[in-house]
């Protein structure tokens, strides 16, 4: 089922579908995090983003996040879908959905997942501005 729950796609992500993947009769709470492309960063206007992914490793690192979260919290199901390629303002870059019996664990596991994804998953984001482009977080 990892193929469904963990996914990297060059097509638009389907938030509703990712949410439905984690639904369960045992769940009292689902938390869904959606990362979207902002129109600006540090007061500079952003034209678009370009995401590049090392797919095989990124899938493995995302599976590790699901496993780690499931050890720390009573996660029923967790799904992580990440977009790659060219994204415009408002497009969805990542969707993380977590179901749990109670809400506190759902929030904490979801926040843990996006925080860890940003640290460990080999995906790279280039911001394209009017006057150039920059690989985000590459330099200190």
């Amino acid at each position, binding site marked *: 089922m990892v193929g469904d729950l963990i996914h990297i796609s060059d097509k638009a992500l389907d938030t509703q579908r990712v949410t439905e993947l984690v639904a369960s009769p045992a769940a009292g709470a689902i938390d869904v995090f959606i*990362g979207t492309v902002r129109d600006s960063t540090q007061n500079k206007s952003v034209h678009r983003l370009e*995401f*590049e*992914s*090392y797919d*095989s*490793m*990124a899938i*493995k690192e995302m599976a590790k996040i699901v496993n780690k979260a499931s050890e720390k919290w009573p996660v029923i199901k967790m799904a992580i879908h*990440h977009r790659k390629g060219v994204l415009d303002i408002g497009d969805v*870059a*990542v969707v993380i959905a977590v179901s749990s019996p109670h809400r506190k664990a759902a929030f904490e596991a979801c926040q843990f997942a*996006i925080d860890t*994804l*940003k*640290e*460990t*998953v*080999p*995906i*790279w*984001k*280039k911001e394209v501005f009017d006057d150039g482009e920059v*690989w*985000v*977080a*590459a*330099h*200190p």
Partner: protein
Amino acid sequence: MVKVKLFGIAKDIVSASYFETDSGITVNHLKQRIIDKHPSFSDLRSVLVAVNDEYALDDVVIDENDDVAIIPPVSGG
């Protein structure tokens, strides 16, 4: 020879999506080589190496059939 994949800013610095290196060297040795050849790598927040889709420690020896990649600072999400 081992093919070393490049992503993100690493691809831009080398101006290629991969390069080849000798097998039998350590991860640390590989990092040194690429920094020596392309000093811009030393300006990055970090330079990590993945071997067979896992982050590899400096003393790991790279084998002929390993899947190797340079991992510049990630920025997904």
